[in-house]
């Protein structure tokens, strides 16, 4: 026990735990008030036992207790007192839900203002057991989970850890049910025992639990032996193994659309398009540090170029109806041109102002496409219809399953280019600009050329994405190109880790792919994006997979508490807007 804690009054001792518990309470009540809990509760995880709404409540209890135990510098309190701290935090957290339940009971009319504070929410948080019993259950669950967390950190034991991991994995499988159900569709026997109409069946969950726990146990006992045996193998043999694994992975990636079916192929294609855009924006924002909020403009330019020039619809005044493969490079050229044209005026604008101007550009492009003034050429709000699908020889890329390959090839080429650019002279020039424009210029970097190349190349990636998008959908509307897309791309960059190429892919999978697995999530998607952007910036500004150099820059700021803002990333805005 910490000697400093001895002469503290008991109330003060629990103050941090109470504070964290109250914070957790605010979060969970907020989730209830905006209807998130209720929406998610429609998704069963273990059929008839646990739904996602309740799971979220428990996870929040768990995390609250964890944060109540967390000390600065990443340490966790490991004392006997931990149990009490965790328990108090969980209890306070649960108490806030009880307050919500009481409000819902005595004031049902609140629904007329807060549309999501419904009787169903009351049922949900009281476990359909009525206010009194439900409240007691909630308090027990909160305090119990909290105390368990405290105990776990006091005496972490391997068996408990295995149990925790196993439960998390089973729940994860339950969460990803849609994906797995499709994967197992060729093994009807397996999916019949594992899954109910929604969620895992109780038997399936128990089965999975047993299998996974067994696996972990085996690994704990024999894992070291296996590792040693693998390391003892002669090198060529080891290489052969890893090559086989690599080949297997490639085969899986190539067969993915056929394993997963139409719906998931569609999602994969969307993810791929966002990877394309993410790699492009990564050059502009991640490498060169120019925050561009109108990035969707180039996606739109690519899509409209493809649309206008290949469409068969007679409503568009100029429609040559050319071939996809002729227009694809043309769309690329046009979007590079667009990038440069929009880039030249903003060459001297930095930081915040740059963000706003580019946002303005993005909106102007969309408003122009939407306006009646240009309707004969761009179709106005009705957009462009009848855009044909691309052909490879006699083979029509008719659906997402075929489009997938086109997108994969596009992503690979673009990722390769981005990777080569990153370590090239140009890439280093971009990073120098990101660090400090003035110093970069005095080192002999041509700012105009370098910045325009960033805008142009970034735009070209989005342009290709847009062109593929247009022919994939067959119809494009101006509404598909609003600010949300730009924000989405920016968010995935930040989540993944700016400046880092694998980060972009991870970011797209997490932000574009994952939400599709939870269709209920749609209404809360942007809410979560917003929260994630804020939390990431507060907690881990370098992203999930940080690029080494950028992480270093941000570290600098963290360790110098009272320091002046470092010149990095966009450089300090000395004379706003003017270099």
């Amino acid at each position: 026990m910490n000697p400093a804690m001895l002469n503290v009054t008991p109330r003060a001792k629990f103050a941090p735990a109470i504070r964290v518990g109250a914070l957790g309470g605010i979060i969970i009540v907020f989730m209830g008030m905006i209807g998130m809990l209720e929406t998610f509760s429609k998704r069963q995880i273990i059929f008839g036992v646990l739904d996602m709404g309740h799971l979220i409540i428990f996870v929040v209890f768990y995390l609250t207790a964890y944060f109540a135990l967390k000390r600065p510098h990443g340490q966790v309190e490991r004392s006997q007192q931990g149990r009490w701290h965790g328990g108090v935090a969980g209890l306070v957290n649960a108490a806030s839900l009880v307050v919500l339940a009481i409000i819902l009971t005595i004031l049902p009319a609140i629904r007329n203002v807060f549309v999501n504070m419904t009787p169903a929410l009351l049922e949900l948080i009281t476990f359909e057991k009525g206010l009194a019993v439900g409240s007691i259950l909630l308090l027990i669950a909160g305090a119990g989970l909290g105390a368990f967390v405290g105990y776990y950190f006091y005496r972490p034991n391997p068996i408990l850890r295995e149990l925790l991991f196993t439960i998390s994995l089973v729940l994860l499988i339950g969460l990803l049910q849609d994906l797995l159900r499709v994967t197992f569709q060729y093994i009807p026997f397996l999916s019949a025992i594992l899954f109910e109409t929604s969620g895992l069946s109780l038997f399936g969950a128990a089965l999975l639990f047993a299998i996974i726990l067994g696996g972990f146990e085996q690994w704990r006992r024999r894992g070291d032996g296996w590792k040693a045996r693998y390391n003892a193998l002669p090198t060529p043999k080891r290489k052969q193994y890893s090559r086989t694994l690599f080949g297997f992975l490639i085969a899986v990636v190539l067969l993915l659309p056929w394993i997963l079916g139409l719906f998931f192929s569609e999602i994969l294609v969307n993810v791929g398009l966002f990877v394309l855009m993410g790699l492009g924006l990564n050059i502009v924002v991640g490498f060169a540090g120019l925050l561009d909020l109108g990035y969707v403009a180039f996606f739109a330019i690519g899509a409209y170029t493809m649309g206008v020039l290949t469409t068969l619809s007679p409503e568009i005044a100029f429609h040559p109806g050319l071939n996809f493969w002729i227009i694809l490079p043309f769309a690329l050229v046009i979007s590079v041109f667009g990038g440069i044209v929009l880039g030249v005026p903003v060459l001297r604008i930095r930081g915040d102002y740059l963000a706003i101007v580019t946002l303005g550009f993005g909106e102007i492009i969309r408003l122009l496409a939407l306006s009646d003034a240009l309707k004969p050429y761009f179709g106005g709000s009705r957009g462009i219809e009848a855009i044909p699908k691309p052909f490879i020889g006699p083979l029509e890329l008719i659906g997402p399953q075929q489009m997938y390959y086109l997108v994969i090839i596009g992503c690979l080429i673009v990722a390769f280019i981005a990777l080569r650019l990153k370590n090239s002279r140009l890439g280093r020039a971009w990073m120098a600009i990101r660090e400090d424009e003035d110093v970069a210029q005095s080192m002999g970097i041509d700012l105009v050329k370098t910045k325009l190349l960033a805008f142009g190349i970034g735009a070209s990636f989005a342009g290709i994405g847009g062109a593929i998008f247009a022919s994939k959908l067959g119809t494009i509307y101006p509404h598909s190109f609003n600010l949300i897309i730009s924000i989405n791309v920016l968010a995935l960059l930040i989540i993944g880790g700016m400046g880092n190429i694998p980060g972009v892919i991870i970011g797209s999978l997490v932000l574009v792919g994952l939400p599709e697995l939870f269709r209920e999530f749609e209404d809360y998607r942007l809410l979560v994006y917003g929260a994630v952007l804020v939390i990431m910036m507060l907690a881990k500004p370098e992203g999930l997979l940080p690029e080494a150099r950028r992480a270093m820059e941000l570290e600098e700021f963290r360790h110098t508490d009272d320091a002046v803002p470092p010149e990095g990333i966009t450089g300090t805005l000395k004379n706003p807007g003017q270099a």
Partner: protein
Amino acid sequence: MQKSLATRFTLTDIFIYILGGSIIALVVVGSIATLATGLYGPRQWIDFTITGLTLGSIYSLIALGYTLVYGILRMINFAHSEVFMSGPLTAYFLADAMGKSGYLDENPVLGISLIFILAIAVSTIVAVLVERIAYRPLRGAPRLVPLITAIGASFFLQYAFRGFFGPNFKVYPEMAILKGALVLGDLKMSYIQILVIVAAMLMMLGLNLFVQYSKTGKAMRAVAEDKETAALMGINVDRIIVTTFMLGGALAGAAGVLYALVYTQVQFTMGFVPGIKAFTAAVLGGIGNIPGAMLGGLFLGVVESLGPTLFLEGLQVPAPYQLRDAVAFVMLVLILIFRPAGILGERLTEKKA
């Protein structure tokens, strides 16, 4: 370095000037052509101007929030448009209840005041929360970081309010007292327009007096000038920053109700367009400059209202009113390119440079 770029006349400059020149030429030719058609008499132009002034005073109020915060923190508070939205959206429920119970007809002045008070309170609270949670921990971080946080906070707030109150449009009740119009010859102003313009003017006057003469106002100016020195002079910088956010939030909340009275509809996305336009107004007047934001707002309102018809009608552009927002955005881009310091110059920004 900065000088050499500014004095050198490069290809980029030529491109920019050609771009600017052609837009100005377009505007001049369009205006002459429109005036030559004689479709619109002085009456219409006066109408357009009054509509523009009404809208412009709302923009001014919001722009003040951007400018105040920028003056002190040198950051664009992207979430300000959501601060603007939160007040009237919440106050709608009060307005609706009072409208249905007939209270608004019996006691209109008090009723409308209550709506204003609630909206102002909610917007102020939201502004302070955003500052506390999203901005304060990041003071001293690289510039991009708080900017991204601000964007995140903006989306979070939008969808949080959607979750609270639902996604549908909400229609403010009709207020009998605000029906009708004042007619003086060619000049016709509805009571709502009068209310908006007068209320906005009063608030801006009050803000100006506050910033110029009150102790807190002086402290705000001191902090805007130099945070460290202000802190050495015994000013609590954090408290001044919170006060600034509160002032901006209160003005935005009031502007929100005025906006709701003019357009009658409120919804969780209502903040985005006025927000970005108010930002344009703030930049137009010189960001960080309080009178600049006021003038910028009025100017933008008038240009936006007159502009599409005046500039584009004569050029045979169909349905020019659809391009209203585009006119505002083009103006924003042009100002940032040609005169980033704004029309009224850089009273605060220059010092900091």
